[in-house]
């Protein structure tokens, strides 16, 4: 069987998701054996344009990005959003909730006019996305499973249920029930991460996006009971879900 050609592409992001791919260890060799990687800046200087599957990391935040991602879409048969920035706009979208002139000045100083930055957007605001591999950064196991699914022509399994499921399976004490309770976004956030943050005592910040039917009013009620203000709650949303990243 001919190996499918694959490209990795980055937009505005930390490239942590591609680093995750590179740090797959032995499994990276399996990946190299299963696909031909023709475009992967972090791994090779070769830049082929004949890819069938494009893994796209990062959010869209310049008008040049829009042109470039449309070209990728035109070439690839399958486009996969890789990680929270591509999926939700990610932390880059925090700036959408600030005055843009301030943000530009803070970032670029008096050279701001040189940069055509626009509001950060998830990639599906610009192109049709076939599959999403969420999280910040992506989960290795899920990436491998999802990639195998895509090669098989199957929609990858990405849960639509909340992180609480994963967290209970891990037998964690709920962060809300600790002696010093911690407010957590788990009840409204998509699972699949294995509750990685709550398992080490950190609040879920929603990096896999909201589930399709989050009970936000119940969640806000719980947060208020735990003494959080509206501002605190908004901060929670703005971390990853400012654009209300329910997967479309």
């Amino acid at each position: 069987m001919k190996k499918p050609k694959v490209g990795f592409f980055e937009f505005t992001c930390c490239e942590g998701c591609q680093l995750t791919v590179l740090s797959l260890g032995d499994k990276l060799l399996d990946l190299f054996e299963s696909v031909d990687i023709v475009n992967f800046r972090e791994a090779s200087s070769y830049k082929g344009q004949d890819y069938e599957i494009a893994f796209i990391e990062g959010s869209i935040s310049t008008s040049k990005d829009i042109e470039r991602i449309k070209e990728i879409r035109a070439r690839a048969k399958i486009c996969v959003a890789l990680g929270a920035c591509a999926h939700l706009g990610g932390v880059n979208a925090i700036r959408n909730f600030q005055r843009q002139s301030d943000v530009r000045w803070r970032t670029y100083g008096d050279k701001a006019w040189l940069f055509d930055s626009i509001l950060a957007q998830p990639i599906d605001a610009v192109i049709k996305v076939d599959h999403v591999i969420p999280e910040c950064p992506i989960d290795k196991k899920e990436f491998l499973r999802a990639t195998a699914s895509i090669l098989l022509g199957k929609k990858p399994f990405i849960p639509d249920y909340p992180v609480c499921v994963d967290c209970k399976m891990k037998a964690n004490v709920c962060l809300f029930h600790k002696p010093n309770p911690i407010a957590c976004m788990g009840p409204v956030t998509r699972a699949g991460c294995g509750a990685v943050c709550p398992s080490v005592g950190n609040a879920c910040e929603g990096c896999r996006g909201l589930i399709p039917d989050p009970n936000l009013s119940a969640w806000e009620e719980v947060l208020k009971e735990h003494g959080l203000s509206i501002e605190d709650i908004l901060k929670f949303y703005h971390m990853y879900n400012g654009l209300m990243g329910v997967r479309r």
Partner: protein
Amino acid sequence: MKKMKNCVVTKRELLDLIDRKIGEGKEVIAPAKQENQANFKRIKSTREILWEGPQTVIPPKAFLFPQEEELMEYEVNDEIKVKVKVEGKPIILLGIHPCDMNGTTLLDKVFAENNLDEHYLKKREFVTIIGAECLVPCSTESFCYRKESVLPLEGFDLFLTDMGKNFFVEVGSKKGKSLISKIARKTTPSDAKKLRKIRRVRDNLFDKEQRKLKPKLEDLPKLLRENYDSPVWDEHGSRCFNCGSCNMVCPTCYCFDVRDYMELNLKRGNRTRFWDGCLLTDFTKVASGEIFREGRGARLRHRTNRKDWYLFEKWERSFCTGCGRCGKACLTKIVDPLDIENELYDRWKR
């Protein structure tokens, strides 16, 4: 189950026996403290055991029906080779509360009914269960006394009651009997008398401290049947996250999803089952996108009905053991069956 002879062992001797087993490499799982709650873990010494509450976050079902369990693996070439994985390993589950033994007994029934689930039964075969009677309520959420679950029906190899220096031991199986044959001594009439007294005190304490169930236990199926359309379901449901926490932590929830995973070479793969829950939105969703149980209230109702109506009528026993885990786990405090049933009862009476 055939009743075997009860006996008495000194605590010291039993704990030494277990510690020796641990020393020999035997896997002994018991409740141990985890932050301000508890969890089952493989213990290195019986000193780690948390004999009295709080309840463990997840029930012992995890050792018989794991969160994630490979049912089979396969190789796909010109031929397809399927290798079923039916595996068990000898472990001792120690310090299991009566509610959880009853939960396990109910799982034994459903997995052995009609179509035998060998994956469960094989694990079950290898497990030795040593239960321990609760003499004080384990948490404010539990209501085991109301669900006639302060004593195990069956489903244990040994069942211990703390009598100070000794354990009173009910022997539930040959496996249990042979485990303690060297240290067991015959019970005396005074042991039996002492046990009766301990249980009387326990009953009084539990009756006083645990929340009341207003309807009669045996009337629960009727209560739920007649209140199928009660507004209580949507009122509670409106605050439901559909997070499935109640399902995950329940000792008698046994629904599962099955998923196939292929390796990158697309030759080798496996079929694995995972805990699933009827409170999750997609639980009834089919490929066309249709969801057959729509609405948060309807899903909450289904769970409650399963526990105290559908399965209750079928097996003549409530499938809620009153362990209190779901009530504890639920962030919006809407799922506790006792709360719901009392609320239904109050409004129904009016």
